[in-house]
């Protein structure tokens, strides 16, 4: 299945796993599609013990929260744009507002800039209370130029 086919399948209400399969790390973390929305889907990271970074508190690992949010941003781009390849991360910045408890986490993204080559995505992550985010982040991605994507498609 190509990326375009997987995207179409998810947009048509099909299995999110088809898209997730292009991003093995997100699959490994355990990401799920929580709320199906064409423009602003909500992703969920179910809690499991292997995600804990501080067993004493306990709290999720800061890298898990970051990796979840980076994955959410990337999957949002795969879902809403017509990219034929997975966009490359340029940079990532995260502010931790509260410690993430050992429970399910949610992430929603906003595409705050969409240029020809660069996209910026802002991500909010929360747990049981949507009004109390555990972290805010933003990420820049390098997009594949559509011309190249078309050319490669023709070569294939």
């Amino acid at each position, binding site marked *: 299945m190509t990326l375009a086919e997987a995207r179409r399948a998810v947009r048509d209400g099909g299995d999110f796993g088809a898209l997730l399969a292009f991003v093995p790390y997100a699959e490994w973390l355990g990401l799920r599609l929580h709320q199906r929305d064409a423009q602003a889907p909500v992703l969920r990271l179910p809690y499991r*013990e292997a*995600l*804990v*970074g501080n067993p004493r508190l306990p709290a999720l*690992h800061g*890298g898990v929260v970051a990796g979840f949010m980076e*994955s959410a941003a990337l999957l949002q781009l795969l879902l809403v744009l017509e990219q034929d390849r997975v966009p490359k*991360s340029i940079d990532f*910045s995260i502010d931790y507002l509260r410690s993430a408890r050992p429970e399910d986490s949610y992430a929603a993204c906003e595409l705050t800039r969409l240029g020809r080559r660069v996209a910026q995505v802002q991500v909010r992550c929360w747990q049981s209370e949507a009004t109390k985010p555990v972290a805010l982040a933003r990420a820049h991605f390098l997009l594949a130029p559509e011309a190249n994507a078309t050319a490669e498609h023709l070569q294939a």
Partner: protein
Amino acid sequence: MNEPTLPLALAQRFAALVPHMRELGLRLLRVEREFAEAALPLRPEFLGDRERGLVHTGVVTSLIDSVCGFAVHARIGGLVTIATLDLRVDYLRPVRPPQALICRAECYRLTARIAFARAAVWQEDPGAPVATSLATFMHATRSMHEETP
């Protein structure tokens, strides 16, 4: 100054007790007063771009967050409770398996409550980092008086 303030074996035992560090397979290599260094062998499930075979940046970020934490612990000289306030990562080069990631982090400024850290990640050549990062931590050390607030 070369004497580690946090014994490597103790730091390694601590890392083994942290579920996600265990899950990642993080291996602490060195803990000195000035820096901490760890290796992360790469696995197929770490890919972020299956088709091009590139490692996901979340793996790099998790490694950085962990090793910066050890750098702060090393500078303090103990395993106190710390919390990441913020973290910024620049992804300078794509990461392709199989060469393990190496991360070196240093806590370059420690105040009574805050620790400032920076880190670099590379595969083969420390001179060609795949990522650089800045992170800020809060720490719960009450005996630190390097700076009066």
